């Protein structure tokens, strides 16, 4: 069969197609169609020739098959150290094979590649740090995902996810009206307690423009209210854009390259339109990677930078605490053993390891912060990164993957885990649901609000 009704090489571009695909419970029909989907081998090879640059070519060539990457991979560790989970094997037997065969591979092989690309690698990039040649299998798997997506071999949820971005310009069905309305609602709900608080939409020339994750307006709008409270208390001149507010990119997880570029350009357009001095996003790892670390290249920006300085939320928070814009009441600091989840996307990939620890130095009573082992750029993925959290087909594998984080947390003896990343937060929540180890987990915003030393009159107690 050439192309299915739901599973095909076309991205989801209309609301109708989106709803149709979504109505296919668990992607049953979608995956059935996938079994019949033809591989356009010529197009596949043409794409490879056009897009596979010297870095990946070299990496595929120079891998010495030494196996040093094996132990670096948490998925190898939690899956009984089977050879099939060694990173170099995983990529050589998938992407390497496709390249060797000049794209002449069949349907069954493509489905095998899909399984490896989305359930045996979270693109956490840890292996790249341990390879003597610096080969980063995570980068290569991201590339492989792009090839698979272009041929229609992508997990159902991620096909829909990137479709959401294309149709709604957000990873969930949150329209511009919904978003602006949510900003008004949260301002309304918060202003009584915090007189003078506003959530300014589309204010030009502000000092800070704030972008977020569509899950927030959709399900947890109090996160936006909390961001507003902290900006308000810090006295920031800030704004949110009515368009281009969604910072995340499920299209990056899906390998929908065209959509990735569109997402990030949409955010950059908002920056150009509103001309803020700086931009900061929410406590999300992959959103930062998509917009700040990789985005400039997708958008073809020669300087490799976003149009304006674009910092992660933890950088803004650390700065506000350092400069005294936000003050912590020492009596309210955390006085229980607490640990920190380092997000791969902005710690390993951008080096923000000291920033989060600086924040903890203000909010945790000395002696109570317990590092996970290993930590910082050596930390393991939460277990749900790279889209793993959202894929029903690989739920079982994802639950096994959570075990590494569970062991790390248990070893700290902490009952409180700070997770300033949506994906990590979700994975740790699921971890608790699945394994019931008796922990609590939190973003930074609510914790900080609870321990602020607030200038008199700024908050009305009620």
């Amino acid at each position: 069969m050439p192309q299915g009704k739901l599973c095909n090489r076309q991205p989801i571009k209309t609301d109708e197609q989106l709803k149709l695909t979504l109505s296919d419970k668990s992607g049953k029909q979608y995956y059935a169609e996938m079994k019949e989907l033809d591989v356009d081998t010529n197009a596949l090879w043409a794409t490879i020739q056009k897009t596979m640059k010297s870095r990946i070519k070299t990496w595929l060539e120079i891998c010495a098959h030494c196996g040093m990457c094996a132990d670096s991979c948490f998925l190898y560790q939690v899956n009984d150290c089977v050879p099939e989970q060694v990173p170099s094997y995983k990529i050589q037997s998938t992407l390497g094979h496709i390249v060797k065969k000049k794209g002449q591979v069949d349907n069954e092989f493509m489905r095998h590649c899909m399984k490896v690309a989305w359930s045996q690698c979270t693109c956490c990039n840890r292996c790249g740090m341990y390879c003597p040649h610096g080969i980063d299998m995570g980068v290569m798997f991201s590339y492989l995902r792009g090839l698979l997506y272009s041929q229609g071999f992508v997990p159902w949820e991620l096909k829909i996810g990137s479709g959401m971005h294309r149709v709604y310009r957000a990873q969930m069905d949150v329209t511009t009206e919904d978003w602006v309305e949510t900003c008004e609602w949260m301002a309304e709900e918060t202003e009584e307690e915090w007189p003078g608080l506003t959530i300014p939409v589309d204010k030009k020339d502000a000092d800070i423009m704030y972008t977020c994750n569509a899950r927030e307006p959709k399900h947890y709008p109090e996160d936006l209210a909390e961001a507003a409270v902290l900006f308000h208390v810090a006295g920031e001149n800030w704004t949110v854009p009515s368009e281009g507010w969604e910072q995340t990119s499920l299209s990056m997880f899906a390998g929908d390259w065209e959509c990735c570029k569109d997402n990030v350009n949409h955010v950059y357009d908002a920056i150009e339109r509103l001309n803020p001095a700086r931009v900061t996003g929410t406590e999300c790892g992959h959103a930062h990677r998509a917009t700040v670390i990789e985005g400039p290249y997708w958008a073809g920006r020669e300087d490799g930078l976003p149009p304006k300085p674009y910092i992660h939320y933890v950088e803004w928070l650390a700065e506000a605490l350092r400069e005294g814009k936000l003050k912590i009441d020492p009596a309210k600091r955390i006085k229980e053993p607490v640990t920190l989840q380092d997000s791969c996307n902005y710690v390993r990939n951008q080096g923000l390891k000291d920033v989060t620890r600086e924040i903890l130095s203000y909010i945790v009573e000395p002696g109570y912060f317990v590092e996970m082992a290993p930590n910082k750029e050596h930390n393991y993925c939460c277990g749900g990164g790279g889209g793993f959290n959202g894929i029903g087909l690989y739920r079982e594998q994802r639950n096994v993957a959570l075990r590494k984080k569970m062991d790390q947390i248990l070893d700290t003896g902490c009952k409180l885990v700070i997770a300033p990343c949506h994906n990590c937060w979700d994975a740790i929540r699921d971890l608790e649901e699945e394994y019931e180890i008796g922990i609590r987990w939190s973003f930074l915003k609510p914790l900080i609000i609870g321990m602020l030393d607030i200038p008199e009159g700024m908050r009305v107690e009620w």
Partner: protein
Amino acid sequence: MFNKILLATTGSPASFGAARVAFDMAKRYDSEVTIFHVVGVPTKAFSHVVNDVRTGEEVEVDEEYLSWVEEELKTTFAKQFEGAANAKIVLTTGVPSREILREARKADSDLVVMAASSGENASFHKGYPGSTLQKVAKAARCPVLSVHRESASYWGGFSNILFGTDFSKQAESAFKFALSTARELDCDLTIFHALDISGKVLDQNEIEENLIIARKRIRETYVPLMGDFKNYDIEVWEGTPYVEIVKLAREKSVDLICLAHHTNELDPERARIGSTVEQVILRANCPVVSVSKPDKV
């Protein structure tokens, strides 16, 4: 004043009391009642997979599942639906407290009616500290009526209202609501203050002096606002506030207790210890309405 009632329910027996009151009010006062049910809390991706609020199980929400849930609710409340001309069911997914607030705002509801707890299963609370009721009561623009115990002294309609005050800003709104309800439904209104002496050993003269002061304060604060409304009396007792409120309500066969809600504490354990309104809801024999905002009073 009760044109639009939002009955937020899990459909479990814990919410039957609330449902009885909501439907009774709707029939009596010709209100529109919306049975609002949050099917589940999203667990992954774009909200199609949720933890069912009743079973805690992971389910995929589709048309079929939604119509099954709707049928269940119709069967559960079959008796109440009889004669309720203006009743409809609205289903959604999300975090219950947030979705109740969203719906109340969207529909411009005059009153939210809900149970104090979700009953047997609370697995969906994980990661979302604070009970649904606390969060809704804190942020709702309209009064929130809650029923926890099967309301022994609630026979239908309201005729005897107890307003408990701590003289806070929110109590002004709660008073306005109590007064306008009493006026409109021709009820007796008791204005009550409990002098908090819990855990203290105080000189009796001091207690009595404070009782006199509180009584005077009630007269000065609330009586001028009542105009020609005369069906009221004033009570001031000393003790532990929630205990005294519950005792007085029982003694007077009160059928509605009206209190202000104002706790910043969303941690369920700490809030439960600290909040009078929570304690009253858990113990009272009649519906308790909590008011925190001046919008719908």
